[in-house]
């Protein structure tokens, strides 16, 4: 019984982990390659979910909703990059924080104006409503599908970065953007594409998380901050680091919330455990991050570049 519970929670952790990876992958590239602090990444996640919910309301098709969520975020990401963000690459991080903080306020209010203050819901697609049988444990198909899609995207991102010309240019741009520009590559377009790609992944994460969570203004911020923890643990600018760190954080967070209060009850009195358990569980990932930083400030899996 406990083993099956543990296994289920492990899968839940994995599911949270892949969602975090989708967010972290785009963000870590923008951080690492353009050295740009993007606090508005959570807003793209939120808007992806809203776009999908609207498209679903019109078409009743989850596929089209997914397309609207991801496509909308690509367009929005591209526009944001061209209109505002590209002007800030050469400025210091404080300007990045300021501008993207303003964007967060703006987008949170914008969705309240456009969609109203009440939360939206996106239903699980019909063919994923059931459960799947994994080694004798039944697990919701939809959550399992998230894990599969997340792993596929991770694999795709790896191929993109290491096997394609675009990935090669992105990696080259990370090392020396001026030189890549001098060799005749449109570095501006490359940056915009990279940003739009990150936005697409954030939108995808938003759409996939929407049936599990409620869609509301400000939903991007908690997940953004966890994503930042993932990036710090993984090492800024490293996609594979983001992948491993996302899984570590997702599993640690889920298992901590599920089992830490119970474990504490074994060693401490009920009152202490009830008070400290949830606090410790919600602090766990931050403690993990502080420990990683204290030992390895560059992160566990730093990007391999000079």
């Amino acid at each position, binding site marked *: 019984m406990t083993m099956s519970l543990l296994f289920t929670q492990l899968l839940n952790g994995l599911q949270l982990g892949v969602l975090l990876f989708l967010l972290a992958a785009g963000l870590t590239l923008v*951080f690492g390659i353009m*050295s740009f*602090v993007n*606090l508005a990444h959570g807003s793209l996640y939120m808007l992806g979910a809203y776009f999908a919910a609207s498209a679903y309301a019109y078409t009743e098709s989850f596929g089209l909703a997914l397309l609207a969520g991801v496509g909308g975020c690509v367009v929005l990401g591209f526009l944001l990059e061209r209109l*505002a963000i590209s*002007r*800030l690459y050469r*400025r*210091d*991080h*404080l*300007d*990045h*924080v*300021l*501008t*993207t*903080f*303003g*964007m*967060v*306020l*703006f*987008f*949170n*209010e*914008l969705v*309240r*104006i456009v969609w109203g203050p009440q939360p939206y819901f996106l239903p699980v697609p019909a063919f994923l409503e059931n459960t799947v049988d994994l080694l004798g444990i039944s697990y919701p198909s939809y959550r399992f599908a998230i894990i599969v899609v997340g792993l596929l995207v991770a694999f795709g991102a790896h191929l993109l970065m290491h096997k394609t010309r675009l990935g090669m240019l992105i990696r080259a741009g990370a090392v020396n953007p001026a030189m890549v520009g001098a060799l005749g590559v449109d570095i501006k377009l490359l940056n915009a594409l990279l940003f739009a790609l990150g936005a697409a992944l954030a939108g995808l994460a938003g759409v996939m998380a929407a049936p599990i969570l409620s869609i509301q203004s400000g939903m991007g*911020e908690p997940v953004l*901050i966890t994503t*930042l*923890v993932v*990036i*710090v643990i993984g090492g*800024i600018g490293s996609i594979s680091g983001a992948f491993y760190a996302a899984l570590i954080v997702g599993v640690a967070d889920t298992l901590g919330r599920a089992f830490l209060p119970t474990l504490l009850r074994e060693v401490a009195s009920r009152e202490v455990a009830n*008070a400290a358990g*949830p*606090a410790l569980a*919600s*602090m766990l990932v*931050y*403690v993990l*991050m*502080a420990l990683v*930083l*204290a030992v390895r*400030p560059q992160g566990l899996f730093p990007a391999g570049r000079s």
Partner: protein
Amino acid sequence: MSHTVFKPATLVTLLVLAVLACVPLAAHLADQPFYLAFFARIMIYAIAASALNLALGYGGLVSLGHALFLGIGAYSVAIPAFHGIDNGWLHLLCCVVVCGVVGLVTGAVSLRTTGIGFIMITLAFAQMGYFVFVSLKQYGGDDGTTIAATSKFFGADLGQAGTVYWVALVLLVLVLWWMARLRVAPFGMVLRGARQNPRRINAIGLRSVRYQLAAYVLSAVLCGVAGMLLANLTGFASPSTMTWMISGDLIVMIVLGGIGTVFGPLLGALAFLGLEEVLKMVTEYWMAVFGLAIVLIGVLGKAGIAGLLDGLASRRPASAPAKRAAPAAVTISKPVGEQA
């Protein structure tokens, strides 16, 4: 120092302080106690922003987690008050010690990184504190807690709007004076030098990280004291004081007022909270307008109000603030050379 007295930003600040000193009487005569609380809030945020300016403006440490200390200050009133302790000195002791220790520990860990890493780590620490206080169910958890017994100093009750107003005003003047002194004191010079080029500061035999850590801790404690005043003013402490939105607001105030300047945080807090109040009257969706305004400030550059005022007077308007802003741009994104 005498030459700075005649700068426009200084004159405007003195004018603002003089007006602030008249507010209690005016609010009393007009029978509008709201304005007393409103301007007290502005002064408290000005103190908090000045505290952050010490780390951010002088030290170049972009902390996105200073709301943590504001919140700790608030809870160092709320938690003793919950247990029936209303001695203000104990509240203050509690605030200074906790903020100092938390600032020292988080600062020491955060300063192992620079640039983006530093921003994210301070943010994460603040979030950690937020979750700790959310899970303290006996002190109200998510909903926060009403402060039954506000801080008492020598029989004066900070829970009275008039008392907390005058305390905030006096403290604000002291803080501004201290910030003006500190800016040109050896400590401030080293700090500002470390912002521009930590490697050179290390090379002349001063460990820049130590100075930055000291600035961070001082800034944390002062921010905590502002939080104490805020809790007394509102009679309420809640984890929402610690959200990263508040940390962001503090940064916006500083940039709006003029980063690294002495009077910028006060002018910025005044402009920020004033604008917020005006926009709230005009539209329900004031946050959207406000957000756009912040984006524009970020994209268009950041001389700040203090810089603008000084620029109006001098013949080369952009030169003074540009000099201040440009080195920050270089250093914040540069890694610190660990070896001297």
